[in-house]
C-alpha cells in the first residue's frame, strides 16, 4: 500500500463495487475538511489501469463538493475482489455503525464476491449484529432489490428490520405507493399498517395495490384539509378495522352505547382488552366524600337506564 496525491477525476466513481456507505449527509464532513483538511486518506484499488474507490466515499464526495481537484489516497493493487471488499468492510466496521440498508448491501456483496454462505453466517452476521441464521441472510440480501427511493426512505426514517421485512413482500409499485403513508408515521404505527395490509391481502386474496388504490383510501388521500400525518393515521385506522372486523364491530357497538347514554367523561367505563374477559371496569377519581358520592349517584342513575343492559350483551 502506498500513499500518493491523486487527481480526483482519475478515480472511477461509477464503480461502486466496494462501496459500503449510502444515503449520508455531507455537511459535517465538508465542515471538517474546511477546518482541518483531510487527515485520513481514502483507499483506492488500482487494477487494469483503473482506479476504484474502496473506502472513503463520504470524504471523496465532500472533496468534490468543495471543488478540490486532488486529494491524498492510499493505493492498493489487489486482484481478488473479495479481498478488496474486506479492506472497505473492516475499515468501516471499526469506525462506525452500519445502517440496515448498508448491512444488506454488505451481505449481498460478500455473496457476490464468492464468500461462502456458511462463513457469512458464522463470521459476518455476528459482526453486523444480525442473528446467525440463513433466513436472516436471505432476508437482508433481498432488501438490496428495493428501488433507490425506497432504500433512501428506509435509511432516512431508520425503519426497523421487521417493518422492512414486510415491505419486501410487496411489489415495487406497492412499495412506492406506500411510502407517503409510512413516512409521516412512527415505527410502531408504520409496522402496524404494514402488518395489517399484508394480512388483509393474504386473507382476502386482494393485492396490496388494490387495497391502496381502493375508493375508501382514495377518499382519505384526497381530503385536502388533512395533513399527511392525519391521512396516514386515518388510513391506518381503516386497515385496522378491516383486519379486525368482528372486534371493530363490537368496539363500535360499545362506544355507541356510551354515546347514546351520554356517559360522563369523568367516569371511565372500559372493556377488557379485545373483550377477552367478560368484566367491565369503571374508573373515577375523587378528592373528597362529596365528590365520591356524586359519582356514585351518577353511576346509579346510569345503571337504571335501559340502554345500560346493552353493554352486557357484549360479553
Amino acid at each position, binding site marked *: 500500500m502506498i500513499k500518493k496525491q491523486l487527481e480526483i477525476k482519475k478515480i472511477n466513481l461509477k464503480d461502486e463495487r466496494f462501496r459500503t456507505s449510502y444515503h449520508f449527509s455531507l455537511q459535517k464532513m465538508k465542515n471538517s475538511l474546511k477546518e482541518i483538511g483531510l487527515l485520513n486518506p481514502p483507499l483506492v484499488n488500482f487494477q487494469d489501469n483503473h482506479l476504484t474507490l474502496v473506502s472513503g466515499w463520504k470524504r471523496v464526495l465532500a472533496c468534490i463538493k468543495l471543488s478540490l481537484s486532488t486529494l491524498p489516497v492510499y493505493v492498493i493493487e489487489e486482484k481478488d475482489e473479495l479481498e478488496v471488499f474486506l479492506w472497505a468492510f473492516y475499515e468501516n466496521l471499526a469506525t462506525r455503525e452500519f445502517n440496515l440498508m448498508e448491512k444488506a448491501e454488505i451481505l449481498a456483496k460478500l455473496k457476490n464476491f464468492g464468500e461462502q454462505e*456458511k462463513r457469512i*453466517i*458464522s463470521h459476518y452476521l455476528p459482526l453486523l449484529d444480525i442473528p*446467525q*441464521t*440463513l*433466513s436472516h441472510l*436471505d432476508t437482508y440480501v433481498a432488501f438490496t432489490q428495493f428501488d433507490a427511493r425506497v432504500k433512501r426512505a428506509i435509511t432516512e426514517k431508520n425503519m426497523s428490520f421487521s417493518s422492512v421485512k414486510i415491505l419486501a413482500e410487496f411489489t415495487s409499485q406497492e412499495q412506492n405507493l406506500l411510502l407517503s403513508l409510512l413516512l409521516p408515521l412512527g415505527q410502531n404505527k408504520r409496522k402496524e399498517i404494514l402488518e395489517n395490509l399484508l*394480512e*388483509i391481502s*393474504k*386473507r382476502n386474496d386482494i393485492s396490496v395495490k388494490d387495497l391502496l388504490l381502493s375508493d375508501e383510501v382514495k377518499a382519505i388521500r384526497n381530503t385536502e384539509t388533512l395533513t399527511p400525518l392525519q391521512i396516514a393515521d386515518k388510513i391506518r385506522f381503516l386497515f385496522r378495522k378491516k*383486519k*379486525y*372486523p*368482528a*372486534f371493530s364491530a*363490537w368496539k363500535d357497538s360499545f362506544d355507541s352505547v356510551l354515546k347514546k347514554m351520554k356517559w360522563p367523561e369523568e367516569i371511565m367505563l372500559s372493556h377488557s*382488552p*379485545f*373483550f*377477552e*374477559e*367478560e368484566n367491565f371496569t369503571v374508573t373515577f377519581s375523587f378528592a373528597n366524600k362529596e365528590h365520591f358520592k356524586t359519582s356514585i349517584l351518577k353511576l346509579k342513575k346510569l345503571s337504571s337506564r335501559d340502554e345500560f343492559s346493552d353493554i352486557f350483551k357484549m*360479553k
Partner: protein
Amino acid sequence: MEKAEFVPRKVYIEKQSLTLPLTKRVLKNIGQVPTEIIDDPQGFLEKRKISRDSVEHGKKDLFITRKKGEFIKPCPCTPQYIGCNYFVINLDLNCPLDCTYCILQHYLPDTIITITANLDELWKQLDVFLHQNQGRSLRIGTGELGDSLVLDHITENSKDLISYFRNKPNVLFELKTKTVNIKNIVDAEPAQNIVISWSLNSSRIAESEEEGAPSVKERIDAAKRVLDCGFRVGFHFDPLIHYPGYEKDYKDTIENLLGSIDPERIAWMSLGSLRFPPSLHSIIQERFPKTKIIYDEMIKGKDGKLRYFRPLRLEMYKNIVRFIKENGGKNIPLYFCMEGESIWREVLGWIPRRKEELEDYLSSHLGKTNV
C-alpha cells in the same frame, strides 16, 4: 414426509448412548440407515441450526441421546386460563409430521427429531413421582413435545409404557397421536387405565395443514381397531380452525367419528382453538407461504398468545359441542385446552374449580362402562 412409516435419512448417536438398550433396539428396527457417533452433542446441535429451514432439516434425521433432568412435568398449559392438571412425560422430541400450526417449530431450541435412550432413568423417576402422589388420581401422557406413536415402530416405547402403567390404577395414561402407527398397541394387552387418543380436525384442515399425517378417516379407522382390541380411546379437536364453511366440515368429521366409534367407549374429548405465540407467526409465514390460517381475526389473549376473538371461539365451540351431542355424544366428557371461565361456563355449563374436579370428571366415564 410420505404418509408411510417414518424412516430417518441418518441416525446420529451420542457416544454415551451407544450401549443403552433402547439405542440397540432403534438400530435394529431402522435397518440399513447410515449412522454417525457424536462426541460433542452441543456442538453438533449448534452446527445444524445453520440451515435455510432448520425445522424441515431436523425432520429428516434422528438423534439418540440421554436426557438429563426431569422426565415428568406438569403440563405447562398457559397463564391466565384454566389449566388441565395433566402431567407430561417428555421422551421423544420433535416430529416428522409437518403441521403448519405446530408449536414445536418455535418451542424447541433443537430441531432434530430426538429419541431419549436412558429409559432406566424414566422408570426410576416415575416410581418416585407416583409414590409422592399415591392416592391421587393422575392423568399422565406423552405427546406434548412430539407425537406419541409416530416413532413407535422404531422405539417400541408404547410397549414399555403400557406395561409400566397397566398396574397403576390411580393413573390414567394417555398416548396422543395423529398417526396410524398402532401395531404395538393392537399387539398389547389392553388395560382399563390406558387411553389411546387421536388429534382430529376437519378433512380440509388435515389435508392442507397437517402434512405427512394420515387422513381423518384413516385416524378414525385406527381408533376403531384400537377400540376393538379393548383399549379406551380419546379425541382432541385441537386446534379447531375457523374458515368459511368450517361448520359443515367439522360436522362431517364428528358424524364420521361417532358413526364409527361407540360414544360410550370414548374416554374424553378436548377442544381448543388455534392459538400460538406471536413469534410463531413469522415462522409459519416463512415455512408455509400458502397457508391462510394465521391471517384470520386473531387477537392477543391474556397470555400474550394470538387466538381468535372470543365471540368467534364461542361460536365455534358451541357448534362443535352441538354436533357432538346431536350425534350421540351427550355423555362424552368434554374439556377445553387453554380456555377461560366464560368459555367453560357458556359452552359446557360448568367450571372446574379444584384441581381434582377435572380428574374426577374425566375418570368418571372410564368407570361407567366395562372394557
